[in-house]
Structure formats: C-alpha cells, structure tokens
C-alpha cells in the first residue's frame, strides 16, 4: 500500500512544506477495548443470523452425526473387529473432523458475506477491520461448540466411554476449538480470494479430504504404505486426533498436545494477518 501517488508534484509551489510521509495505517489503529466491542457487535450479528435462520445450523450439526453413525456401523466391524471398539477409536477423529468442517464453513461464509451490502457499511465505519473476520470466526466457534456437544452426546448414548477425567476431556474440546479457529483463518484466505461460494467450497473439500483421510482420524495407520505413513506423520491432523484420542480414551498425550498447540499458534500467526490484509484490500 503506497500513498506516494497522492503527494503534490515536487515543483508545485504548495509542495514546499511537504509533510513527512505518514504510514497509511497511522489512523487505522483501534484501541484494544474498542476492537473487542466491535468483535462483540459483529459476533452478535452472526448469532442473530443463526437464530433467525436455524436451518443453516442443520448441515453443520447433522453432518458429524451422520458420519459418526455411518463410520461406526459401516466400517467399525471391518476395521476394529467390533463396532464398540471402533467407536472408542473414531469418536475423537469425528470431533476433529467437525473442527475442519467448521473451518471450511467459515471460508464459504465470508465469501458470501463479502457480496452483502452491509460490507460497504462496515468499510465506511471507523471500526477495527479485523473485527468482521474475527466476529465471524467467534460465531462459528459457538456453532462448533454446539456441534461438538451433540456429537459427544450422541456418541455416549451409542456406547462411547470417556476413560479420562473431566479436565482432560475439556482440554480435548478446547484443542479442537483452537484448531478450528486457526483453520478458520486459513479458510478465510480461500474465502476472500475465491470467486464464488461454490469454488470456495470445492477448493476447501479438495484441501481437507487428503488431510482428513491421510491421518489417523478414521483408521489405524500401521497398515498404510510407507509413503502415506510419512505424510501421516507430518500431517497436523494426526497429532490433533492422537491428542484428542489420548485425552478422552486414555494414553500419553503431552507430546501430541504440544505439537498441536504449535500448529495452532503457527497457523494463526501466519494466516490471520494475511487474511486481514486481504480483506482490507478487497474492495
């Protein structure tokens, strides 16, 4: 972003007392508390949208339910020998899958939002630019929380059992939320860049499918070919799923939790500023 083109020509008489060039963002700074207020207002808007149109909750909430039932009863016996054993294995995986789906919903959502007339209004207000994106993400997190609760509730009803304590279980959910929040920024870039919601949706599926299945999410990895195992090892999904699995059904989790946290922070630090910049420029 350069403002130099707006300087008066050097030879013009009025150009003599040229002001030191000020950065474009000099007046863009919004105090932190004001920013929180703006995020709150935008989040509120999205939550009202959900309240006014509960149907948009359906796909996000029902999807993991359908996945859970299908995976457990279709693949369960074949993969783990019994549906009950597979249930213990796959529920943490499904939980992470909901996080990924929530993330891609964010991308599609922001792409649709950009065509809404209210975006012009937002841009003409002295509000924090990032608040629009953050507000959207926070409301998506609320949706995810509901979705995770339903998934875990149904899983428990079908025979899933926690073998750890409440703290570990909550940490697993927090990890899933944090991961979804981070992915949301990534998908925001896809959403802002994308031509239309359909292309964003298509691209999101293209990106997430290999990451989901090329991990320990739905099946044990030891029977996979070597090249795929190599991919599985570097795939962050694997670490998040393993961490969640250990946190809910028992086992050592510290290593996977740390790696997961590193991924979450890393993705946010890289993707969030890019997304905000792109949103600012997209006019």
């Amino acid at each position, binding site marked *: 972003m350069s403002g130099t083109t707006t300087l008066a020509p050097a030879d013009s008489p009025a150009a003599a007392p*040229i002001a030191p060039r000020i950065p474009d963002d000099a*007046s863009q700074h919004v105090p932190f508390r004001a920013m929180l207020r703006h995020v709150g207002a935008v989040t509120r808007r999205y939550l009202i949208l959900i309240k006014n149109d509960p149907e948009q909750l359906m796909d996000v909430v029902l999807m993991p339910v359908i996945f859970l039932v299908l995976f457990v009863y279709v693949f369960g016996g074949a993969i783990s020998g019994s549906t009950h054993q597979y249930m213990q294995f796959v529920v943490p995986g499904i939980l992470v899958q909901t996080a990924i789906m929530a993330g891609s919903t964010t991308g599609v959502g922001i792409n649709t939002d950009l065509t809404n007339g209210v975006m012009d209004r937002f841009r003409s207000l002295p509000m924090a630019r990032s608040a629009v994106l953050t507000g959207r993400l926070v409301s998506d997190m609320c949706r995810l929380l509901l979705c995770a609760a339903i998934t875990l509730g149904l899983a428990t009803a079908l025979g899933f059992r926690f073998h750890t304590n409440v703290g570990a279980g909550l940490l697993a959910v927090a990890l899933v939320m944090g991961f979804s929040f981070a992915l949301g920024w990534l998908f925001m870039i896809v959403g802002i860049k994308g031509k239309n919601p359909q292309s964003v949706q298509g691209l999101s599926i293209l990106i997430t499918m290999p990451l989901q299945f090329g991990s320990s999410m739905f099946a044990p990895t030891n029977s996979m070919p070597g090249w795929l195992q190599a991919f599985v090892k570097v795939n962050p999904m694997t670490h998040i799923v393993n961490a969640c699995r250990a946190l809910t059904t028992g086992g050592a989790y510290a290593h996977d939790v740390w790696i997961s946290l590193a991924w979450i922070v890393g993705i946010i630090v890289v993707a969030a500023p890019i997304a905000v910049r792109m949103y600012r420029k997209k006019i």
Partner: protein
Amino acid sequence: MTTTTTTRTGPRDDVPAPPGGGTDADTSIVVTDLVKTFGDNRALDGISLTAPRGRVLGVLGPNGAGKTTLVRILATLLRPDGGTAVVDGHDVVGRPQLVRRTIGLTGQYASVDEKLSGRENLYMIGRLLDLPKKDARARADQLLERFNLTDAAGRRAGQYSGGMRRRLDLAASLVGRPRVLYLDEPTTGLDPRARNAVWDEVRELARSGATIVLTTQYMEEAEALAENLVVIDHGKIIARGTPDELKELIGARVQTFRPARPQDAEAVAAALRTAGLAEVRIDDATGAVSAIPADDAQLTAALAAVAGTGVPLASVTELRPSLDEVFLTLTGKGADR
C-alpha cells in the same frame, strides 16, 4: 494538468492545512485531480471540486459517469490512483479512520443487513461506532421513529419495501451524527411517494447543517435538492454551477401547445408566430405545436393569442430538457473547445 494547489494534510490533524489546501470553515470537501482507473477504463479522469460546508452538492451524470466511484473514494471504500481528496480536513488515503468518523454513507443499493431487523441494524452500527449499549439502543429507537419505521422495527429489513429499506439505510448513515453525508442515487428505483419522503429528509438534513453530496441521474432531483451542481461524464466534470446557471447553459425552455383537434395545429402555430415565439414547429404525428418564448411576457402573450383564435387546447406543457439533452448539449460544447 493544472497546477496543484492542494497538498496532503499535515501529519497531525490539528495542524492547519497549508494555504489553499485542505478544508476550512467554508469548505467541507476538497477534491483535486482525482483519478481512478479500472483496467483500461478511466472511471475518474482528473476530477476537482469543492463542497461548501452545510450545503447540498449535486453530482449529476448518466450511468457509468463515475459518480459512484467518486463517492466510494470520498467514503474511503476505494483508493484513488491519483489526486487527493480531503474530507473535513482529513485526507481519505492518509487518515481514513478519521474520515470515517465524520461521514455517513447511503449507497445506491441499500447497505443494510437484510437478515437483521431494522432495530438490530441500527443498534449494531451504534455499537460499531463505539456508542455505549444504552445509547446505541436509544439512538436506534430515535432514528426508527424519525424515519417512520417504529412499527417495522422488529421485522427483518429483507421484508421491507424499497422505500422503507432506503429510509433505514438513511437512518443507518445517520447513527454517528455525520457532518458529511454521501447520498448515492438515494431515490433510484423508488416510487414517487417514497421519493418525496426521501427528498423531505434530505432537505431536513441540509437544514441541520450537514454537508451533503448527492449523486443523481435526474435533473429534476438535482434541481429540487442541490444548491450547487457538477455534471460529470466519462469521469470528467463537464459543467458546474447552480441549477439556474446550468439551465442557461442547456438552452431555452420549450413550450408545447397541444390543440384538442389535431387539424387546428396550423391555427395555433400561426398565433404563436404572431406572438413572436421562436422555432415554432408542428409535430405531424400528434398535432402538437412546440415553440420557444423569449421570456414570461411573451409566453403570456402567446397564450392570449391562442385564446384569441378560439381553438380549444388540450394541454400546454413546458418541456424540461431531459438528461440526454443536457448531455448532448454539454458534451457538444466540450468538443468544440
């Protein structure tokens, strides 16, 4: 290019602008050599104008003339490729957040959230403008009442009629009590009643001391609301002045006398010629007779002359120059220069 007399505003906003630049007590907006291109299309091709404080500046032009681009730059939604725009002392590029604090924007396509109710729309904007919750709520109710939307306050804006939506949009742009208000074709697509309601509001706002920039494609609207006009076409200003001055530029007023029976056209034409009117013409298809009176007295004489013939008239109408004619006239003159 003319010499540029306007520089950027200083690094601090309390520093007075250099002489001849920025804005002062009398001018609210100073635009200098503004250029914006989209690919090969020069949407704005060196626009310079000033908007007097507390007045309505009309920006008149056909579709695609660059009106909306100009408003979007002044509202900090678009960055210019060249030139400067200073609004209320703040450069739109260097100090966008300060500009945003002083402006209100009502777009051609109402920028309200269709899925939120009228009240929720206004409340959200109040919060985004840093009003405390209570104040945001009070301001929303106050504006809803003023714009006659109280009964519809709880309904989604998507269910509003075109006129109601435009009123909500206008209300939304007023939440922050802006000193400068942009109205981008505020009545396009409205029926006459809704249009009149918006007109009344604009007049009311102008009385309250806000500077208003109003874009329109309707000569009539510009005349009704604006004290000063600029006419733009292909991204350039092709004329400026008061509505009266522009009318002079456009040419004489044409009166049309339509006899009740088409066969009386010759008799009417003869009477008009006797009265001294210029360019008396008969439209063979309708039997209407058009002529240009030099002044009001001649028009009165013409009516007397026609009355003297005893021919019954069906109508007498003044032909306002259409915007097309305005542009033909103005761009024609531009080409001669």
